[in-house]
């Protein structure tokens, strides 16, 4: 498809397990973002990738969270030793960096439930 694709759409895991969430951005988009959406908390910025530059990791809540972007395209968000407070919808978005509109295109998200 032409949109941002995320997988899995739903993930249920046990506390202490590691999880990987995948994002496939729109082809040609150089910028990729991860946000976390928790009930009543809105969208919380996690990490931002732009081309080959070092990522902006300022939003990652702890060192259990990490993300990679391989070949300037697909990204994986990894949460190690999951905790119940990690339960949320993780949203990925992509955009053109050099078009100064600021519009982000979002995937449908990966809903993570930690039991």
């Amino acid at each position, binding site marked *: 498809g032409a949109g*941002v694709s995320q997988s899995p759409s739903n993930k249920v895991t046990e506390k202490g397990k590691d999880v990987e969430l995948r994002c496939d951005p729109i082809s040609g988009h150089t*910028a990729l*973002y991860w*946000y976390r959406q928790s009930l*009543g*908390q*809105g*969208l919380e*910025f996690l990490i*931002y990738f*732009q081309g080959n530059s070092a990522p*902006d990791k300022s939003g990652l809540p702890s060192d259990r969270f990490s993300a990679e972007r391989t070949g300037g395209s697909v990204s994986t968000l990894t949460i190690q030793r999951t905790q119940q407070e990690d339960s949320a919808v993780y*949203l990925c*978005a992509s955009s053109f*960096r050099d078009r*100064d*509109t*600021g*519009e*982000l295109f*979002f*995937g*449908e*998200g990966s809903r993570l439930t930690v039991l």
Partner: protein
Amino acid sequence: AQSVTQLDSQVPVFEEAPVELRCNYSSSVSVYLFWYVQYPNQGLQLLLKYLSGSTLVESINGFEAEFNKSQTSFHLRKPSVHISDTAEYFCAVRGQGADGLTFGKGTHLIIQP
């Protein structure tokens, strides 16, 4: 840095009534402003945006928002809502020259028949 405040977490309104969803922002630089909508079980979609020019911007489905620099606001309005407008609405800001968007906490618009 920028911040966005959406004062109302929920707004219930009757069908065909007008609605206003409030958004205020703070920024030390000039900004671009956005409203995104999230329908149930879907991702966020851009509803409308202000980049420059006319301070009143409109969407294709009847929503409009007005950029008010003196009041640092970008309230979203619709003169007559429909059941299908039930969704979560997020206001967002981006500082000029910055990357990414800062979002408000969202307002859940609930349309009552």
